[in-house]
């Protein structure tokens, strides 16, 4: 059985609406899939902007919200990713799926082309 596992890394400004754990739990129930959420916050207010130095940091350590989705049914997994992209839009960067497995990444990337803007 194929396991689909993806980490969607949203950086500040990427998600078009606030990511709420309550909404993620609701999506997990609807699609019968596992979703977890983790937030890293390292910004500080300077000159009226929330600022952070990221140039020499590990990708995993900078400010971000990570939605982790996993499941073993391709259709449900795809539908859930699609719903996340429709709600928040897809993550923006070339490294936004870092930590995903190959099967999950293939689906998440394919759907980005549809829901991510081009």
């Amino acid at each position, binding site marked *: 059985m194929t396991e689909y596992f993806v980490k969607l890394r949203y950086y500040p400004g990427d998600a*078009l609406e606030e990511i709420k754990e309550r909404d993620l739990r609701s999506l997990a129930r609807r699609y019968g899939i596992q979703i977890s959420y983790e937030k890293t916050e390292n910004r500080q207010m300077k000159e009226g902007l929330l600022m952070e130095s990221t140039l020499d940091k590990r990708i995993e350590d900078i400010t971000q919200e990570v939605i982790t989705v996993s499941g073993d049914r391709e259709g449900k997994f795809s539908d859930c990713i699609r719903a996340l992209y429709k709600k928040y839009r897809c993550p923006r960067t070339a490294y936004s799926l870092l930590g995903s497995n190959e099967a999950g990444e293939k689906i998440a990337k394919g759907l980005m082309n549809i829901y991510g803007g*081009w």
Partner: protein
Amino acid sequence: MKVLALNGSFRKNGNTEILLKQALMGAESEGAQGEILRLTDYQIGPCRGCGLCLFRENVCQVKDDDVSFIFSKVNECDGVILGSPCYFLELTAVIKQLIDRCWILGHQIGKIKKPATVIVPYATRGWIPYIFVQSNILLNVMGLTKINEAAICTQGISEVVLDQEAMDLAYRMGKEIAVAIGGKDLTYQGEEGVCPSCHDWLVRILKDRETIECPTCGVRGKLSMVGGKIRVKFEEKAWGDNRFRPEVSYNHYTYHIAPSKDYFLRTKEERKSKSQKYREYLPG
């Protein structure tokens, strides 16, 4: 009060130059001092994609051309009039070449309170869809605020002087710039397009076939038909996603560009191995 005209036309005394000079005369009537740079008279080399301007603040590897001189002229002036002919659907190549070199100015996006206006002479109606995309990008990355824009239908060299309405418009636009500088008022005075931010009429349909985007600003909205008319609706909260707002621009650099260094470094061995055959194939 200095107003700088940037001319994207190679032709001397052509329609673009005439319109720009007419606009400068308008600005001078309001007390401004005019200057014009024909961009094709200067060396504007291609961006080498080295990333130094992004990964080492304010350093451009290309030092043997005139781009820093052009940027210094823009920084010295109080307002800009950008002109370019449209030869093939968009502005001339020198404008795009300059846009590509503007990464080094990223830190000033949205922070410089200077007005700019755009004048584009063109020959055939319907052959100019992208002219204001490029001018919007250039002005935004230079940190300038567009207060007006005009596309003027004219063809042969210097023929625009026969079009008094166009000449009057250019003069007025020049006056507007000087008045905007004097009054510190950057209110947009041109025709409203569909995008509330860049005022262009272009929209891009996303592949979900439900969402539209302003391709320049990146702001998302919806299309609908109301009373037989196309309605383009951008929610007010979506305006905040305009890629040329200082916060969005800052986030783009801080979270989309700078962390790529870590990804680049950690994929070094795999990249080296997988790209070997391309280094060996047709070596340049």
